[in-house]
């Protein structure tokens, strides 16, 4: 007779749902692939997940559109994402939980007490610092709730660009004083999973990695899991060969666009955006923006809303930089990528400082 201990294990839950060991291995193989681990890890992941207990997860919503939760929950059929999501003990989630009002708040406090030091805190949305009253839940400011729940969490997962970097609320002029989770919490391990929204598997992949290895995956300089954010869209784009051969779509309906040529000139931010859209894709691997014919918006990067127009090429500056931009284009589009990176940083700095920047100030190195 299985004990409560074994009943909470993933292998038991899957078996109870009619999933055989081969199905479990298939699940782990897919997970291994998603986490970009060596295929030999599939069996080790299977062995590890067999013993893991259901983790408690508290999911908080602040200044956000709930798009990240929508991204995660909109699957057409049982998928790896839904299996992982169904496996965790989601003790608090304002959109998904059945309870409301005091009952919902009670559920959160009970989970915090019962799993003190062990629960995972997931945050969706930015936190307003201009006036804490701009965003409240049950009469408490987002800032107060975050500090209270983070205190006894094992780790924090910032889901979406809003929680990771401030996102849309943080865009100029940032009327609410929106900041990211890591701007407030300094004493907990935090992992950022940016994207507007993030690819669902990036969220569940991190959860799965944590369950398997009892630690967060390797992170980049912006605390993003390298599994999904190590490469730029440009690095893995199937249209990269056209960029390399100088074949660009000049408008959305020209011959180049119909032939699937590079969308750099139509504003694609792929060269400066780190994400997994090019390989993992969207909607059960149906497609992704570039494959659908639209350039990358750069939604997993900080300040992407203030990085110039979505339809302006990276090498073409906006605002006061138009004169200098002509020189950059003349220098070649390859240099334009590096200039685009430098431009992005310089523009942000210049706008903040109200400086004038000349051509001589530009660096040709990223």
């Amino acid at each position, binding site marked *: 007779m299985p004990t409560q201990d074994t009943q909470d294990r993933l292998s038991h839950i899957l078996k109870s749902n009619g999933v055989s060991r081969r199905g479990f291995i*298939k699940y782990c*193989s*897919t997970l291994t692939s998603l986490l970009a681990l060596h*295929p030999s890890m599939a069996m080790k992941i299977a062995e590890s997940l067999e013993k893991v207990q259901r983790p408690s997860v508290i999911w908080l919503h602040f200044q956000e559109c709930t798009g990240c939760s929508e991204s995660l929950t909109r699957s057409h059929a049982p998928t790896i994402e839904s299996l992982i999501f169904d496996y965790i003990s989601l003790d608090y989630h304002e959109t998904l939980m059945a309870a409301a009002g005091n009952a919902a708040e009670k559920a959160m406090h009970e989970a915090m007490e019962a799993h003190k030091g062990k629960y995972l805190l997931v945050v969706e949305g930015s936190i307003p610092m201009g006036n804490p009253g701009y965003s409240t839940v049950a009469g408490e400011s987002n800032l107060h709730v975050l500090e209270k729940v983070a205190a006894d969490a094992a780790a924090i997962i910032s889901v979406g660009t809003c929680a990771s970097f401030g996102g849309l609320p943080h865009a100029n002029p940032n009327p609410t004083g929106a900041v990211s989770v890591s701007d407030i919490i300094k004493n907990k391990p935090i992992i950022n999973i940016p994207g507007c929204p993030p690819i669902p598997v990036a969220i569940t992949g991190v959860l799965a990695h944590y369950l398997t290895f009892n630690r967060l995956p390797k992170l980049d300089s912006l605390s993003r899991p390298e599994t999904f954010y190590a490469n730029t869209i440009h690095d893995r784009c199937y249209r990269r060969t056209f960029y390399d051969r100088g074949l660009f779509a000049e408008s959305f309906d020209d011959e180049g666009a*119909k*032939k699937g040529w590079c969308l750099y000139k139509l504003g694609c931010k792929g060269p400066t955006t780190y994400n997994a859209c090019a*390989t993992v894709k969207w909607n059960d691997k149906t497609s992704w923006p570039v494959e659908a014919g639209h350039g990358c918006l750069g939604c997993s990067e900080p300040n992407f809303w203030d990085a110039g127009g979505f339809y302006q090429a990276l090498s073409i500056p906006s605002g006061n930089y138009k004169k200098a931009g002509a020189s950059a284009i003349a220098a070649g589009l390859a240099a334009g990528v590096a200039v685009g990176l430098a431009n992005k940083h310089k523009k942000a700095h210049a706008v903040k400082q109200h400086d004038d920047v000349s051509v001589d100030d530009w660096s040709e190195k990223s």
Partner: protein
Amino acid sequence: MTAASIPLVFSPLAFSQKSSTNHIYSLLVEIKHALENFHQQGIKQSIDLLATPLSAFERKRLLGLLGKGEVDINLTSLGKSEIYETNYNGIWFINHKDEDNQVLTQLIEITQIPDIVLSPIKDIPESTKKLQTLIENEVK
């Protein structure tokens, strides 16, 4: 001219030979090296086709080039999985799909036989018990 009078032309994304990304060649070389390693050192290898920047046309072409050999296995668990050995011994293709027939992952495995095909040893005792029950019921 009004917006309604502008003809809309839909054409599939053209991936002719000219539009090829030329990744097939490098992938075939990688597979060959993996096969040599497996033969000489017994090191199994797995290549995730969906993580490789191939167009849909190229993926289809690659599988066409590798072909289908003598062994064809169908696995039904969490959806269908096609598993077959290609025309080249030791090179297997695995196509995992979910219950909606959506592709989960596609792998080229260089091995004698993919691990997922082998009967799980841990499940043998339970199979023995179930078979015993079947025998007892048959006797009755």
